[in-house]
């Protein structure tokens, strides 16, 4: 294609750059998606790191129901359940909850719980000061553990929301972390 007239070559270069740029844009959509979901709080994805509890005013006049659900990835033989299914809290009130996990298999396994809040718009108002989901959960064969969760609901929670459902799905990530039972922060 060396014999192309100059104007062809210029246009050709621009179009190829355009295509390559759009390939990059496809990948740029990945962080963009996370940033947008975060900023708009629209994905039901709660924040992935601990928030600090600063003396927020507890709004005694309002009660919010918080429900807990736990799922285990199909094919993973763990038991994983909340110890209470629902509690009533006042916005701003620091609350403790526990989940129970047991490795039913005969293999050491590393689990990772992924939280999701429904309705999605409520996710931004659900603050966890401590959560087992911030870390991986390694369990030796047949071992069990109590998994702690400490949270509070932001008093700015929109009036239209009076129930928040926190759902955890537990995934087997043993293969991804190389099979070892080392404790490490989850992504």
């Amino acid at each position, binding site marked *: *294609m060396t014999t192309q007239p100059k104007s062809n070559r210029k246009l050709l270069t621009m179009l190829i750059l355009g*295509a390559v*740029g*759009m390939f990059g844009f*496809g990948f740029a959509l990945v962080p963009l998606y996370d940033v947008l979901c975060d900023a708009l709080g*629209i994905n039901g994805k709660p924040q992935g790191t601990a928030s600090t509890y600063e003396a927020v005013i507890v709004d005694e006049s309002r009660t919010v129901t918080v429900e807990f659900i736990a799922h285990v990835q199909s094919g993973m033989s763990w038991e994983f359940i909340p110890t209470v299914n629902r509690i009533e809290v006042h916005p701003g009130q620091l609350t403790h909850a526990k989940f129970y996990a047991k490795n039913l298999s005969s293999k050491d396994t590393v689990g990772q719980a992924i939280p999701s809040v429904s309705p999605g718009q409520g996710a931004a108002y659900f603050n966890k000061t401590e959560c087992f989901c911030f870390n991986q959960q390694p369990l030796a064969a047949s071992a069990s553990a109590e998994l702690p969760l400490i949270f509070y609901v932001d008093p700015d929670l929109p009036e239209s929301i009076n129930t928040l459902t926190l759902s955890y799905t537990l995934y087997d*990530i043993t293969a*991804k972390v190389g099979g070892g039972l080392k404790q490490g922060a989850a992504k």
Partner: protein
Amino acid sequence: MSTTTHDTVAAHDDHHHGAPKGIMRWLLTTNHKDIGSMYLWFSFIMFLTGGAMAMVIRAELFQPGLQLVEPNFFNQMTTVHGLIMVFGAVMPAFTGLANWLIPMMIGAPDMALPRMNNWSFWILPFAFAMLIGSLFMEGGGPNFGWTFYAPLSTTYSPDTTGLFVFSVHIMGISSIMGAINVIVTIVNMRAPGMTWMKLPLFVWTWLITAFLLIAVMPVLAGAVTMVLTDKYFGTSFFDAAGGGDPVMFQHIFWFFGHPEVYIMILPSFGIISAIIPAFSRKRLFGYASMVYATASIAILSFLVWAHHMFTTGMPVFAELFFMYCTMLIAVPTGVKVFNWVATMWRGSMTFETPMLFALAFIILFTIGGFSGLMLAITPADFQYHDTYFVVAHFHYVLVTGAVFSIMAAAYYWLPKWTGHMYSETLGRWHFWCSVISVNVLFFPMHFLGLAGMPRRIPDYAIQFADINQIVSIGGFAFGLSQLIFLAVVIKCIRGGEKAADKPWEGAEGLEWTIASPAPYHSFTTPPEVK
């Protein structure tokens, strides 16, 4: 206007590169007409292959219960049928038409980048050999739907998924090269006097389509690449366990997917805008508004992708935004339909086969547009989503839309390509068989969908049995009718009444100023456009 001097051109050709004979001619050719013909034949072969898969689907669905194929094989059939029809039949047919017609319509001797043109065609057969070949390998071919949603295509997909990914990469590269070629040709090779607002609408619509292709095919390539690395290399783009998000797959896919459906319809708009005036013996009504409408459709098509995702739990404001943007697209589309009807108004119309297909296009495509509007109503979509109603919608816009326009184009330009008139009798048989059977095939699907029959299932509840039987019969009839088309084309290539340079009285455009059949090299000296 000049009619080129064919004899000197042919002589020039012989001594220039002594056109190789036999198979090498086709392997090495850089001639836009050869490449156009190869694209069109390839597309037709894919149309029949994908059609055969549809016959398997309809045979299985003829009765409730499982009788002919395993559910997993059924899923492979729906998946590969969709992929073949989209990437193997409709898109290559348009590229073939672009190759044949754009240089002749703008008074250029060939495409701007002929060597690249050869490549963009010849990588396609490999892509489809790989895709179809994977059906026969252990674990079977892709079974996750043409939309390959994660995690179906990652965690749960067959071992051949890598082949699927590479074949989509190759198809994408081919389309992008084709699109680049179209743009460079149109921008740089127009005959003197062929100003922008004199371009035939087929050229305009293809120019805009080419920009859409360059914008979204790379995004598709990115999506399949992420599926590849998620499945084989431990990344977690779409895997919640590793911090990814399967819903994000749908956003990326439909960012490509919705413009893609317009890639498959804009060139049709160009074809219909050539045929309707020719057989109404009037100029196209509202040329400029057609150009602007096409451009607005293309721009809007980037703002509506999430209408495929209303049920994923988006926030209400997003659902409303995508609902209104989607409905907005109906406005420029309506402008086009209005212009075609206004063109026919008080025209002296005749109804040769290309016109019959074009008229059927207008009516049936509009039905598809209306069902699209119904789907765009967010609350209604919660009922219609993933049912046969959606299947009915996209087959109206794609089969009686895109495919009918391709048939219309074939009949309209066959005399120019082959130098012979096709058999009008057979053409009409083809049309009437197709138009009746296609409605028996797709119209009742609306009712199935409204009654709640889900799409992509090999078995169904007993109350859907009667309508499915009717649909299947329509399907078999439509499939068989396409063999008439094959007969028409072969007969027309072999012989028939000699075609005049301009066989259609009302036709307009530079392609009708050169001989029929179009000489191997045309417009080697550019014509003067007044």
